[in-house]
């Protein structure tokens, strides 16, 4: 292929941007190996001491909580997202379809702060749910939902739902409806057809959806910060505390680095664990 001048014009900006980005990522790498000088942004000499920080029980707890929250969120999002995605593909009225689609994907576009803030109003001690339950006389005292792990997961599910619905709906819509018809013509009821035909054929979407939700949740910051209120911490919160509140760039860099490696390892493990599902894919 002869290379036209277009190629050079088009690839150069991308390379420049990539260099900037690589520089930013290398900063993390370099700073993770430098000494922190308390009270200053200037760093000292080279050291590997910073990495021992990762072994503190507090940090181990944060990492395992983060992994747990990500896993629970990904699975719960799958359960909530699948029926919506299925409905999107199968609904006949185009108006209803557009409505469901817009409602389902809006949370992706409303931003972390707005979304988290509105959940504060729902879950708070004087929030909507407690007020409703109190007035119905179902409870005498407000139920403490804020600052708990399930609440953080609930709000994160709301956040990852759109991407899950998009991925699943794309996968389901690629399944030839003839398969379901064939299954039903062979005497299987709708539930059995779904279980034996549609669900297995949407496996690629399931895998992609779970992994994407997992990775997205990993970067969560505002949700655990506001809903967790310091009681439920994810890695992002600790990085912020150390990096911005105590200006300890080297430690924040170490944590970020660990965060990246942790995501890559976990996503790799999930790909591996979900591999058996992948074989169901039909050419």
């Amino acid at each position, binding site marked *: 292929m002869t290379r036209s001048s277009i190629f050079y014009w088009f690839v150069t900006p991308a390379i420049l*941007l*990539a260099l900037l980005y690589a520089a930013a990522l290398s900063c993390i790498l370099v700073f993770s190996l430098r000494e922190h000088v308390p009270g200053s942004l200037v760093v000292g000499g080279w050291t590997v001491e910073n990495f021992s920080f990762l072994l503190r029980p507090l940090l181990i707890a944060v990492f395992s909580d983060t992994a747990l929250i990500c896993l629970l969120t990904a699975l719960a999002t799958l359960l909530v997202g699948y029926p919506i995605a299925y409905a999107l593909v199968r609904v006949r009225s185009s108006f209803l379809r557009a409505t469901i689609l817009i409602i389902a994907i809006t949370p992706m576009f409303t931003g972390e702060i707005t979304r988290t803030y509105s959940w504060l109003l729902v879950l708070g001690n004087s929030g909507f749910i407690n007020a409703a339950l109190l007035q119905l006389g179902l409870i005498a005292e407000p139920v403490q939902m804020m600052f708990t792990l399930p609440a953080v997961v609930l709000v994160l599910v709301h956040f990852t739902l759109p991407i899950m619905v998009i991925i699943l709906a794309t996968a389901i819509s690629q399944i030839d409806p003839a398969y379901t018809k064939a299954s039903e013509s062979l005497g299987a009821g709708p539930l059995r057809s779904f279980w034996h035909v549609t669900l297995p054929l949407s496996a690629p979407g399931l895998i992609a959806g779970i992994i994407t939700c997992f990775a997205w949740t990993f970067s969560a910051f505002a949700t655990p910060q506001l809903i967790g209120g310091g009681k439920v911490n994810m890695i992002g919160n600790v990085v912020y505390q150390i990096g911005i509140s105590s200006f300890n760039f080297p430690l924040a860099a170490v944590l970020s680095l660990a965060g990246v490696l942790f995501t890559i390892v976990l996503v790799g493990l999930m790909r591996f664990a979900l591999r058996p599902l992948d074989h169901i894919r039909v050419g």
Partner: protein
Amino acid sequence: MRLNFHSIAFWLLVSLLIGFVLLPAVVTAIVAFNAGAVITFPPKDWSLRWFERALTYRDFQRGLWNSVIVMLWTSVFAVSIGGAFAWVIDRCDFPGKRLLEGLLTSSLLIPSFTIGIGFLILANQVAMNRSFAVVIVTHVILVLPFVMRAVFVSLRSIDPSLERAAASLGAGPWAVLRTITLPLMVPGLFSGLLFAAILSFNEFTATLFVSAQATQTLPVAMYNYVREYADPSMAALSVMFFVMITVVLALTNWLMDLGRILAIKSQDH
């Protein structure tokens, strides 16, 4: 679909789940029109005062202005760099292609706080930590994978023989690009622009790291507000947000069929 037990149960379930998605927006709307400074359910009185306060609050005004600046520059850069690079990925082979592509889409996998702290340290090193440039570059990196994906999908849907036909009729590479490829890429570029604008306008985590007082965007201003005050101004602002986003999405759907942009086909014909 026949109305039988299964389908009734299914649609009931879907309605419940849709209710879950809508719940916070509905609650926020109730709070926003609440007259009192203390949030109560149900509100005792209704008022628009919190909308007024949200719109006149200095930090929100400045945050909005900053957000718009960042959003515009981010969209322009992300769509031109990402669009061009998507073309390169689709059409050319060169050493290091996979590496470059992997790096520029890695922000999907790398947590945004990591990207934020990386650019914060970098900006600090070159003494640029108070400029818009840092915020904009960070945003471009974060939205680039989405822009590239949107453009890539529309590039892929262009029949390659169209460009060959143009070449056989005497059009050189730049003429093919200008008269054939670019016009056919418009839907992809448009959805890429939409993605870039919305995601940049909403970006919070990385921005929190790289923005300073002077470059604080609206989401950061909102975050600071939530931590300090408990009055319903935030609810009013959120409602405006919801309405704006829904209108944009509905318009997009009406203009270009969201389902097609997102590659969801409807079945059941």
